[in-house]
């Protein structure tokens, strides 16, 4: 029922700034840390730190090109979240079946 990978993704995307960076990379494609920083209102070291966390969670990938590092989103990493949601839905549906049986057996 519980796997560990979704926990790390929860933790990572729980931060709104980090999630905004991730969503932007999903929407606009690969970019450098400078391009990400420009309109974000967040300092470049902070953006780099968020990118590090996203990379650790498998949500972004980096690529060196000369002096620049380019970052791109890895949205397939979200599959473990949708798996989690599916698993929990199945779990509660089964438990609700049990609950229904129990209620039918209980006295008023």
């Amino acid at each position, binding site marked *: 029922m519980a796997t560990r990978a979704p926990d790390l993704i929860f933790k990572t995307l*729980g931060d709104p700034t980090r999630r905004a960076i991730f969503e932007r990379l999903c929407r606009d494609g690969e970019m450098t840390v400078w391009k990400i920083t420009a309109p974000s209102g967040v300092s470049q070291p902070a953006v780099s730190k968020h990118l590090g966390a996203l990379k650790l969670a498998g949500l972004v990938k980096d690529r060196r090109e000369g002096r620049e590092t380019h970052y791109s989103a890895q949205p397939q990493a979200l599959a473990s979240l949708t798996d989690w949601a599916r698993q929990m839905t199945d779990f509660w549906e089964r438990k609700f079946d049990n609950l229904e049986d129990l209620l039918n057996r209980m006295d008023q």
Partner: protein
Amino acid sequence: MSKPDTLSVVIEREFSHQPEKIWRALTQPHLIAEWLMKNDFAPAVGHRFNFREDYLPNGALDCEVLAVEPNKLLSYTWGSTSDNPAFAVQNIVTFTLTPTATGTHLRVEQAGFRPEQQQAYQGAKYGWPRFLDKLDQTLAKAN
């Protein structure tokens, strides 16, 4: 930006039983054990308890009661334990009971997020943004 963010699943079902009866099944340990899991639950805010099942990681979930409104609402943390604190994330499970003409509408929401957001949760209570839809949209756009 100040709102805590969450990913949650919501499961809803109509039962042809009164809320009072469903409330008993949600709050009496021997009844909870019959449909959900073995436990040492008590319906008191702040009460810490475990769910125990062999298939759980470490055999148990660490839980704490957050809200108790008899026949209406029950909420507790749902902690998946891990030896690595970075991976020990708390979920929140919230049951909401609404009387209907024929019985009760029962809704359970399981929300996952960072442990340090627990406090924020207690202020914000329910009605959080549904994150999964947004993620699906993000995925659809990315593909």
